[in-house]
């Protein structure tokens, strides 16, 4: 009984907090409805970028995704929301060569309360959300370290 309580406590501690959970539930609904991807069966990462959002976010995300070890890239889907500009098209083409990408040209993600505006980083283990994080300006190096640690393991 003690073990069950401790394990439950650890799962609660390391899973998304209440607000993140609410946004993740909407994100799950969006992925299933719009992209027919059931995250209950998913194990890996998802990184969502708004191609019509802030220019700095696009370039930093591109730099981050380029720097991730190849073994982690194969575990990560990149969700591209909106249509890229002329200027960014070569960067996006390059990302598409490296990653399994999902496209949302009509920006349907905004119909759901997913807290998406800045890029979103999601880690799912055996169908359970472990991390659901908006990636603001200070977070890129932390996410890069996170991926590098995962690679070293």
């Amino acid at each position: 009984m003690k073990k069950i309580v401790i394990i439950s406590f650890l799962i609660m501690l390391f899973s998304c907090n209440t607000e993140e959970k609410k946004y993740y539930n909407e994100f799950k609904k969006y992925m299933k409805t719009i992209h027919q991807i059931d995250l209950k069966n998913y194990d890996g990462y998802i990184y969502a970028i708004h191609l019509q959002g802030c220019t700095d976010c696009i370039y930093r995300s591109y730099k981050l995704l380029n720097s991730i070890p190849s073994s982690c890239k194969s575990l990560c889907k990149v969700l591209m929301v909106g249509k890229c500009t002329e200027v960014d098209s070569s960067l996006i083409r390059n990302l598409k060569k490296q990653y399994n990408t999902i496209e949302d040209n009509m920006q349907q993600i905004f119909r759901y309360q997913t807290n998406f505006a800045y890029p979103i980083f999601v880690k799912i283990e055996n169908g359970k959300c472990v991390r659901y994080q908006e990636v603001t300006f200070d977070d890129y190096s932390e996410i890069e370290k996170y991926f590098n640690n995962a690679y070293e393991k």
Partner: protein
Amino acid sequence: MSHYASNAIGDSNPLYIIKYNSMKFIIYFLIVFIVISCQNNPQFTQQCVKGQTIRIPVPKGKFSYYHTIALYKDSLFLGVNLQKKNTIDIYDIRNQCYCYSINVKSQYLFDRITGIQVRTMDSIYFCQGSPCCIFLINSKGDVLKTWTKEKLKITHPYYEQLRNITLNFSTFLAMHTPILCKNNMYIPFDPSQKYKTGINIERVGSYNLVKSRWNNFFANTKDLEIDIINKSLPFDLEQPYLCQKDSMLIITYPLDMTIYCYNGNSGELIYKKKYSSPYVKKLPKPVKHNKLDNCQKTWNFRVETPFFGPLFYHSEIDKFTRIYHHPQPLINSKGNINDGQERTSSIQIFDAEFNLIGESLFFNGTVGVNSYLPMKDGLLIGKQYSSEVDSILNYSEIIKIDTLIHY
């Protein structure tokens, strides 16, 4: 009255009680009626009527919706879409056709073309929001002059608070356009949220394009009826709109009923006018900073809140208009976050003294957010953008201001 008064307290005759209570009710009703009658009920004399519908096919590679829009001499529509942020597409709305595009190349142009102001088609000014910059181009896209952030640095000795800020122009927001007036440009800017620190700070500047220096500054945050210093609104709902008539610079805000009139030369606040409308019941007030601490909360606020578009001046009829987007529920009838397709908006009409003289309603997203431009005697409007309709230019209805006939 005295007859009833003489049959006063203590008289238990039922007939008397009924008559006394009836009299009380009549007096009460009269008081309420007089109070209501004395309310400032606007007597509307103007209305918006539908003018021409224009239908312009959009060529391949061009767009139905544009993020930066402008209208020149009520006939040439200029638009810039995010996907081609250095290109101005031009349409002739009188002859209902696409004309040509202007592609601008400049080492200083990193972001979308915004805040287009046309002097002539060979003298087009526009801004870059960040880093702040003003450009002058001709009809071929040749850059004739650039005012970079170095030339735009504020060194005016009187405005010490503005001297140490990073200046970003609010022009990247579609309706927060600058105004070209002879050799000067009035520009709205966001001084890096510095006004949140409680310092009284100006939000609009007048820039001399010939001398390449700032003349004056306007719209101090202390002038506002709403508190955006100690409280917050989403960033875009705190930015000033500009309008000009003669020597007056008129400033309004998305969540403030009040119209602020400044002397366009001295920067002095001449007067402010608050008015009432039968359709504007209550505008949300700014909230505590932590209420909008993530993107989703901010977006939800934006979806639900009613707000104003800019004030427009129509020179041919000496009247003003202002668009009011009514509140809407967060979730629409399809169960998704509301995208404004079902939203009601009204076009308010004012006389030269800013008295409200008309207000016409438009339903189901007919007047789209950020999708209208002033004409000399009306407006060019577009629907709330739906990406499903890409083959026709979205800005397709001409609205005229006309006399309201009471029957």
